[in-house]
């Protein structure tokens, strides 16, 4: 890791966390999609600064634009979501408190695990051969999961294309909508 790497990791991880906190409290899906792009990009820069170059490049150049584009497309031309604005039920507040307490317990436990070892934990040096190892692993040890992911991608694309079709005129009138999708 270089001298600037810890600074980059801290800054971009804080940015990602800030984006995540704002995202879960967001009501507008368009703003939430922009915040998700911030979180994904921040995580990608953290990967790069840690030394996981291939994962960082894939996160920044493929995953972030793809997720941003998909979710921006999904939020286009949407009517007012018509979501109730009454207070969140108590069971959800209880879930949030439980998650926070569990998270604190896990974090404190992990810190104690890291502190109990002999000496500070350091990253192993990273070299160009890691690219070769990862790409080779995709085509050897991890070939079966990659094929499964490819099949899932195909199925997902077919189902998405089917769901993206506009309903036929007859069906729209059945649902009480006019030919343009507005209420009759």
């Amino acid at each position, binding site marked *: 890791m270089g001298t600037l790497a810890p600074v980059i990791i801290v800054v971009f*991880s804080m940015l*990602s*966390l800030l984006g*995540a906190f704002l*995202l*879960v409290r*967001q009501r507008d*899906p368009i703003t*939430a*999609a922009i*915040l*998700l792009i911030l*979180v*994904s990009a921040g*995580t990608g820069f*953290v990967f790069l600064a*840690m*030394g*996981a170059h291939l*994962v960082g490049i894939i*996160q920044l150049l493929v*995953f972030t634009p*793809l*997720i941003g584009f*998909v*979710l921006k497309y*999904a*939020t286009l031309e*949407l009517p007012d*979501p018509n*979501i*109730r604005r009454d207070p*969140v039920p108590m069971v959800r507040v209880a*879930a*949030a408190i439980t*998650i926070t307490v*569990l*998270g604190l317990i*896990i*974090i404190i436990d992990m*810190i104690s695990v*890291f502190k109990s070892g002999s000496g500070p934990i*350091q990253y*192993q040096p990273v070299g160009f051969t*890691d690219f070769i*190892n990862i790409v080779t692993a*995709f085509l050897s*040890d*991890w070939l079966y*999961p990659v094929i499964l*992911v490819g099949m899932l991608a195909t199925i*997902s*694309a077919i189902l*998405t294309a089917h*769901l*993206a079709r*506009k*309903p036929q005129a007859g069906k729209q009138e059945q*649902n009480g909508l006019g030919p343009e*999708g507005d209420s009759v």
Partner: protein
Amino acid sequence: MPAFIVIIAIILSLTGLYGIVCNRNPLISVMSLVLIVNGAGLMLVNLDLILGIFHGQVLTIIILALAVFTAIFTSSLSRKFFREKNMADVDEFQRPQG
């Protein structure tokens, strides 16, 4: 630094979990799922770099791809519900009658 990354990954994942449980908009629930995937990826890559292996990075790439497909499909499903029922509240989704 590894301990810091672990803490960030845990907080990111728990924030995503909160977002799934406490949001009524399905699109924001999907985005919270992506937060969980990002947190898990951070943890996997962190442990990879500590141990000097690369299988965690391979798994991270695979779960990132799965998260994209999940987001694509779920967002299309949400748009269909928006379009047909003018409704975007997961609490209002009911089981089919009959």
